[in-house]
């Protein structure tokens, strides 16, 4: 299986882009589909529980999530499909100031970004935000890097979490915190979701405006859990418990999987989450939160144990490494009982699961036995205001940032995307209450990022070489799981050597 995944991965890398890659990935999903074993028409997927309505607001408790009754679920009348309405952009009114806005969030969620721009443009006539899609998060920051060398920066740009330090280092950013202070909006900072605020605060300054935030979750097939005699509402699992559960969930036909206990893929993001959960640093000093990160340290016990935990899954015959394949499809078709994914995937997974009759539940990211409870990091992207353009354009950009993060905009945004609202007050909006009724699993996700106070650990690592670092971590995982590296420690040590070299080089260019 490993070999197969890896050859598919290198093949995919070679093909690179849209048509080919998409065809293959779809091919993987499609070819696998006919094996889908469990059809359960009577248990409608992820239906809202009756108990969830009242306590909708800001502080959901553990009991609301645990209370979701299994037997009483009814199929919702309208499928909770993600927004798929195509969104044409509104025209620029004459006499308005045009503000260039680059974004990297594509597809259906990108439609909601465009809708946000449309809403802003229709709410006033002085400014016109022109959203221009820049192919992906990666390509957006690449374009910014090139534009920094001598092109034209946009007024507003959406940059993913991993690009945060790079953007700060560009020195072309107007820190959002200063602008908030100038507008006398200090209460705004207090209303931000603490996990979100701490992620985007670096060295005591919040540079960019939080926009779309998510975190990592464990997705579980609730019906399979119940059938295997496991607690489908348990949110905190240790490695041992999850290994044990995966064994019970696995069903085989000879050597072939009918149901894999766990489907996973090598992801640097999950590695970062494990360090946060166990309150360990990915980089020193202080994850780069107080001063610039000087060296990576993810080859400690936390990293090693995570890699060994998943290797054990493979060894037990209860886990499948999907490589760059698609664990989402396996989960949704009942070929895997557990997988790790972003909470922002909940909409897509739920609406697909509805067609296959899979009942979707979520739990926290797992932790080592006896580990005290830390929490995960948020991921996603934020909006940056550059110093490019006229004063009027900058004012317009700032007005858009404020609009995009108003309480009601964020409630609407979250309800239509599945990202966290960045404002705590947004949970009081009608949109958000309705969304929580529809997706009770989302409460578990809220609890998870509120389950521990902010720290340098769960603010997450930040560095100028974040993107290549993730790639090296991923390579280390591949090397260890496929047996090419002798031990998890050896694989991670190699990644540490490479990433520290990159980091040193980057740091030398910015401090000079």
């Amino acid at each position, binding site marked *: 299986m490993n070999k197969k995944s890896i050859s598919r991965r290198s093949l995919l890398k070679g093909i*690179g*882009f*849209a*048509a080919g890659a*998409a*065809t293959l*990935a*779809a*091919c993987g*999903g*499609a*070819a696998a*589909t*006919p094996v*889908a074993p469990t059809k359960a028409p009577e248990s409608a997927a992820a239906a809202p529980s009756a108990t969830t309505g009242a306590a909708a607001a800001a502080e959901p408790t553990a009991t609301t999530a645990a209370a979701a009754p299994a037997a009483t679920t009814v199929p919702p009348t309208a499928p909770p*499909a*993600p927004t*798929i309405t*195509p*969104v*044409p952009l509104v025209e620029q009114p004459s006499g308005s100031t045009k503000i*260039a806005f680059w974004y990297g*969030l*594509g*597809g*259906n*969620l*990108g*439609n909601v970004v465009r809708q946000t721009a449309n809403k802003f443009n229709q709410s006033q006539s002085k400014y016109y935000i022109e959203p*221009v*899609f*820049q*192919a*992906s*998060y990666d*390509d957006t920051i690449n*374009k910014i890097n*090139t534009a920094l*060398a*001598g*092109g*034209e920066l*946009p007024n507003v740009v959406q940059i993913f979490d991993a690009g945060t330090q790079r953007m700060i280092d560009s020195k072309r950013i107007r820190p959002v915190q200063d602008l908030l202070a100038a507008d006398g909006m200090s209460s705004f900072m207090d209303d931000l979701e603490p996990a979100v605020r701490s992620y985007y605060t670096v060295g005591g300054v919040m540079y960019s405006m939080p926009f779309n935030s*998510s975190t990592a979750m464990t997705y579980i097939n609730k019906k399979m859990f119940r059938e295997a005699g496991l607690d489908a509402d348990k949110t905190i699992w240790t490695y041992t418990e999850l290994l044990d559960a995966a064994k019970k969930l696995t069903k085989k036909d000879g050597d072939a999987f009918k149901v894999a206990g766990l489907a996973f893929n090598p992801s640097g993001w999950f590695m970062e989450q494990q360090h946060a959960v166990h309150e360990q640093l990915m980089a020193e000093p202080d994850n780069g939160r107080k001063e610039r990160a000087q060296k990576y340290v993810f080859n400690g016990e936390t990293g090693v144990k995570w890699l060994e935990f998943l290797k054990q899954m493979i060894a037990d015959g209860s886990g499948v490494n999907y490589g760059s394949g*698609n664990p*989402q*499809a396996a989960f*949704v*078709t009942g070929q895997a009982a557990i997988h790790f994914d*972003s909470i*922002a*995937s909940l*909409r*897509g*997974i739920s*609406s*697909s699961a509805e*067609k*296959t009759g899979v009942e979707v539940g979520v739990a926290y990211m797992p932790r080592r036995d006896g580990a005290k409870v830390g929490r995960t990091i948020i991921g996603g992207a934020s909006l940056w205001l550059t110093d490019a353009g006229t004063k009027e354009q900058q004012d317009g950009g700032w007005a858009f940032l404020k609009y995009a993060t108003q309480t009601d905009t964020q409630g609407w945004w979250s309800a239509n995307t*599945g990202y966290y609202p960045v404002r705590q007050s947004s949970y009081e909006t009608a949109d958000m209450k309705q969304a929580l009724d529809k997706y009770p699993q989302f409460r578990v996700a809220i609890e998870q990022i509120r389950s521990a106070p902010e720290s340098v650990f769960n603010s997450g690592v930040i560095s100028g070489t974040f993107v290549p670092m993730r790639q090296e971590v991923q390579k280390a995982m591949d090397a260890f799981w496929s047996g090419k590296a002798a031990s998890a420690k050896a694989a991670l040590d190699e990644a540490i050597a490479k990433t520290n070299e990159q980091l040193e080089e980057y740091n030398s260019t910015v401090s000079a």
Partner: protein
Amino acid sequence: MPRHVKRQNALLYVLLVLMSLAVLFPLFLSLSVALQGPTVAPQFFPDFANLDVNVFRDVFVTEPNLPAWIVNSFIAATVITIGVLITSSLAAFALAMPGFGAKKLLFFVCLGTLMIPFEATIIPNYLFISSLGWRDSYQGLIVPFLASGFGIFLLRQYFLTIPRELFEAASMDGCTRIGYLWRILLPLSLPALATLAIYTFLGAYNAYYWPLLVTDNTAWRTTQVGITVFRNIEYQFFNTQMAANLIVMLPTLALLILGQRQLVQGLTAGALKG
């Protein structure tokens, strides 16, 4: 018709059918996935009672620029191809002809450009094009690719295989050098020219990073960059992406089908005579 010929033909057809199925498979799969609506787990065959044909309309509603992207891609790729054919054949002609002092050195300089990776020149190229104010323009998409070291190399090597006596005979009859290139050398080099043209066109049509960099306006995008807008993040719905892929593929496919005869004829005509 003798029986063994019949049997051979039947075998041939079976083989051809199998081959075309293999070739058509990605197209079929794209269509199937496009019609299944938003789902992370598409089936091999769509549910025929429940086909989502609106997806093709949705693609155009979301991105009304889609036809413009196709036009941009075609104009850029076509002009680049013609440009490369002109510059490469002229340069290769000069380098393949005698009586040109430093031509060996110049040839190695041309070869040398092949050793420099595209990534190394992309920033200087970008800065230059940007300083000319050519972002969001056909010039910006086209000009950096009008000359090709590979094209010069390919054509020079081909020109060298054509007997010198032809040139001498033509000169004797009063043919100028340009006349010789145009009337004799190029017609004899059709296979090499066709190879270069196809190679260049595909490269230009599929270009990704450069068009992304030099276009800031959605309307100036090429298809390869433009259709990324249909790729979902967070969950892998492929329906709109596949619909967009099919739409941008159709013009290319149509051209290929219409032009196939000429293409094959051009190739074989040259090959037989040469």
